[in-house]
Every structure is written in structure tokens, then in C-alpha cells.
């Protein structure tokens, strides 16, 4: 049994990835990745750009299929159920696994409707309760106080930092069990980035969080568990303390020292 620094129990696999291979055309982007992602805490995927971090992340909620000329083999199970099974409803998978993209994409509607988008699709919410739901998740993303007066105005008018927090609120409002973040702060200023990081550390107490980042400092701050990818290969994985203090593989050592990547 292993525990992270805050004593969270880590060895309850939420997602199991088995022999995952991904090709873009003839480019072999992920090579035989096999690993577990644990149900609480933050798993951080690190590695140089182009190593397959985002590919791995997007394969977890099947958003990868939206890319043209992509081929995926292997198994990804969520609570033991293969999400790539023919019988599985892909919208169900994506409802249970939320994603925060690197760049904010506010939907072309009001701030309110952005947050209500997920709940309106999946739950039959009464018109009176939706107000409360939207407010709650805007609070949770730390945006409520800034937008309470203009909640019906177009979301595109927010600043980039606010838009990204809106996207976080929107993702959370769909009430996923797992929250994926693809370089969630890469387009943001330091202060907005810090606020997003704070929200993510709060979230890990009640859901599985997986973050892709190319910023080692961010990884050190947030990670309970680390996956290190190198040229499409999963080189090393383990608790953050172990990976950062005593990496086993030479490539991990070199990457953490800043020699490669």
C-alpha cells in the first residue's frame, strides 16, 4: 500500500490502461502503454512536447477519435468496464470523464448557458434549480464574484483567464467522476494559473484528477502520482515523491534534471 504526502489512499485503480497503442496515420504516437490511474489524488503526466501526453489523456475520454486518421488499439477500463467496447455509449464515457482543454473554448452562448450546458444534457433539471447549480460551480471555479452581474452576457467577452475558469466550471457542472486537464494553465497569466491550480487541489479530494503538463514545477506542486512519457513510451510511473527524488530510469533522471526535452 502506498500513500501520498497527504495520506490519501492511492492504490484503488480507477482507470486501467492495457497495451494502449495509438497511430496518427503511420506515426506511432503511443507505444504499448500499460498503467493504472488511481481514484483519488492527482496523477500528473509529464514529458517533453510531442511525447504523447495529450494523446494519452484524450484516449481516456475517447475524444481522440475526433482526430482524423487516428487508430487506437488496446484496452482502457473505467471501474473495470472497457470504454472502447462496441456496446459502450461514448457520450456516457465523456459524461463520467470531464476534460479541460489547454485553450479555453467558451461555447457561443452566455456565461450561464455555458455552465448549464452539461447539466441540461444529462439531467432533467428544473428551471429553478439550474440557477443554483450554475452558481455553485461558478463558485467552485472561483469565478462567481467576477461574473455575478453579467451572467447572461456572452462568455466570449470574458478575459482568457476567466474563460478558462469558466471552462473548469462548465466541466465540473457535468459532475464527472474523473477530471482530465490538458495543460490547463499553459495559456494563462501566473495569477489565473495559480487560481486554477488551487481549484484542482481542492478537487482531488472528491474525484480523480489527471493533469498533463510540460511545466515541471507545476508537476512538483500538484502531483501525487506521476507518469513519465518519452517518445510515446511510458518510461516510468509511481508516486510523486519517488519519481522526483529517486527516478529509476536514466531518461527520467535526465528529463528531471533538464538535460533532455
Amino acid at each position: 500500500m502506498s500513500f501520498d504526502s497527504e495520506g490519501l489512499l492511492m492504490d484503488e485503480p480507477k482507470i486501467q490502461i492495457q497495451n494502449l497503442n495509438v497511430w496518427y496515420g503511420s506515426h506511432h504516437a503511443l507505444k504499448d502503454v500499460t498503467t493504472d490511474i488511481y481514484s483519488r489524488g492527482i496523477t500528473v503526466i509529464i514529458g517533453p512536447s510531442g511525447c504523447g501526453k495529450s494523446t494519452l489523456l484524450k484516449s481516456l475520454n475517447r475524444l481522440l477519435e475526433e482526430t482524423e486518421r487516428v487508430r487506437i488499439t488496446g484496452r482502457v477500463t473505467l471501474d473495470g468496464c472497457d470504454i472502447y467496447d462496441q456496446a459502450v455509449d461514448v457520450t456516457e464515457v465523456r459524461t463520467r470523464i470531464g476534460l479541460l482543454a489547454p485553450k479555453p473554448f467558451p461555447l457561443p452562448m452566455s456565461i450561464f448557458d455555458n455552465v448549464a450546458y452539461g447539466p441540461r444534457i444529462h439531467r432533467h433539471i428544473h428551471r429553478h434549480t439550474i440557477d443554483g447549480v450554475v452558481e455553485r460551480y461558478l463558485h467552485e471555479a472561483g469565478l462567481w464574484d467576477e461574473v455575478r452581474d453579467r451572467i447572461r452576457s456572452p462568455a466570449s467577452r470574458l478575459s482568457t483567464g476567466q474563460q478558462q475558469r469558466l471552462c473548469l466550471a462548465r466541466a465540473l457542472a457535468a459532475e464527472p467522476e474523473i477530471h482530465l486537464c490538458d495543460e490547463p494553465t499553459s495559456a494563462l497569466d501566473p495569477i489565473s494559473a495559480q487560481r486554477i491550480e488551487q481549484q484542482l487541489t481542492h478537487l482531488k479530494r472528491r474525484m480523480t484528477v489527471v493533469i498533463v503538463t510540460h511545466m515541471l514545477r507545476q508537476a512538483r506542486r500538484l502531483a501525487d502520482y506521476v507518469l513519465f512519457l518519452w517518445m510515446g513510451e511510458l518510461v516510468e510511473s509511481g508516486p510523486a515523491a519517488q519519481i522526483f527524488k529517486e527516478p529509476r530510469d536514466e531518461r527520467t533522471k535526465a528529463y528531471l534534471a533538464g538535460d533532455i526535452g
Partner: protein
Amino acid sequence: MAQEEFIPQLLNRNKKRNHPFGLTRRVKDVLAGRVMGVLSLFAALLVPLIAVILFTRARPIFSAKPLTELLFSRTWHPISGAFGFYPFIQGTLWVTSISMILAIPPSLLTAIYLSEYATPKVRAYIKPLIDLLAGVPSVVYGVWGMLTVVPFVGKFIAPLLTKTLGFIPLFQTDNPTGFSLLAGGLVLGVMVSPIIIAMSTEVFTAVPQGLREASLALGATRWHTVKHVVARRALPGIIAAVVLGFSRAFGETMAVLMVVGNVPQVPSSIFDPGYPLTALIANNYGEMMSIPMYDSALLCAAFILLMVVLVFNLISRLVLLRLTRSI
């Protein structure tokens, strides 16, 4: 390159610029700019120029008849000096409306299929075929309309609709020929579709992939994403596509006059023959010009056509402006 090497090179380049040969290059540059500017200005001035010429030539009739009579009188009898454009305006409006009603929904659905659902391979085969449709000369459409659409309307659609929906005046008929507003609308609809499809496919494809993924990642189905996100984002472009199609349909002459029957009457059913403004001008200009004011009347018709298209364009610009601001 080290900095010390770089600076002398930069200086050298500056020296070269001041070389006498540099002068011709600069003259060429300025000249090219001027020439292109004049050409663009000329292109921009063409429409006002045409409008002015049409207006001056149409002026005799404007001063002889009140505008209300020209626009709303039902009698067209040039020899006795009656120039009522109402039947022709009605003909144009009917044919254009029918064509737009028939063309817009399938064209948009096709565009959505091509940009959102089709695999790259399917798209690569279908798209050029549709684009080909836009290049078919309008006379060919006219001939095709006479050979196929007119009999189809006369022998099949007219009896069918009269039997089933005949209680609505819009679908009643005593004209069994098939040369009708509906035939004109059908032919026009087919002509206009490739334009709307091509442009709206572009518009849909230009919607950022990240926006689609944002919606899909929230568990939305593809159709939900198209309806609530892609279409909404694309709306200004879709309107532009529809306006372009409308302008084309409104001004189309050849194919329409070959199938629409050309009877100057105010239609009451889609199976009635009609006589659009464009057909009026094309059929009669150059003939019977000895009749007083006939020439002026036809140019007045052309002027009305031009004005409607201009006003429509203007309105759509305003709508677009408001839409792009509110999204």
C-alpha cells in the same frame, strides 16, 4: 551567426538599398501599388455606375408615371401605355421564395453532413461533384428543366398535390402544362444549392475543432453539438451563404424563363405560370422598341432588380454585424 558578423552585414544591406538600382525597384513598388489601387477603385465604382446609367435611362417613365402605379398596377399593356410591374414583381418573388424554401434546408443539411459527419474520403469524392453543379451553364439547367422538371411537375406533382392538398388555394391548379412557378423554383433551387452548400461547408469547417471537442467532452452527441454550438457559431456565415444564394436566384434569367411559362398575371398557386422581371427584360429588350417608353420601362425593371439585390445585401450586412457582436 555571431553578433559581430551580423552587424556589418546589416550595414552592407543598407548600403545596397541606397544603390541607384534600388530606385527602379522602389518605383516599381509604388507603381504597382497605384495600378492595383486604381483597378480596385474601378471595380468598386462599377455598381454605382451601372445604377446611375439605369436610372437615367429609366427616368422618362419615372417622370411620366407615379411610382405606386409602376409598382402596384396589374395591367401590362405597353401599346396603350400601361406599365404595371406588379405581376412581374410577384413572379420574381414567388419563384425566388419557392427556390429558397426548397434549397435552404437540404443544402444546410448537406453542408453539415460534409463538414461534421463525412469521413475525409467521402468528402473528397462528394465535394467536387457538388462544386461541379455550380459550374453548369444556366441554359443547360433551362433545357434540363424543360425536358425533365416541367413534365414532372405537370404530370406528377400537380395532380398529386391538387388531390391531397387541393383545398389550399396555393396548391390548386387548372394549368396542366407544368410550365409553372414551381418548375422555375425547382430549377432555381437546384442551381442555387451548390452555392449555399459550398459556402456553408466552408463556414462550418472554419468553426474551431476545439469548440466541437469542448461540447463533445461534456457528453453531448454530435447532433447536439452541431445544433447548439457549431451552427450557432456559424450563423453569420450561414446567413451570408443564404444571401448569396438568394441574390443568385433573384437575378437568374435564362433557366427560369425557359420553364416558368411567361404569362404576365398575378399568381395565386404554385402551379400557375408566372413572368419574373428578369424574363421580362430578357424576352423583350431590343424588340418593339418603337413603342413609346418601352425601353424606359424595361430599364426601370432592371433598376428595380438591382435595387432589391442591393437593399437585401445591405440588410444582411447589418444583420451580420449585429450577430457577430452578440456571439
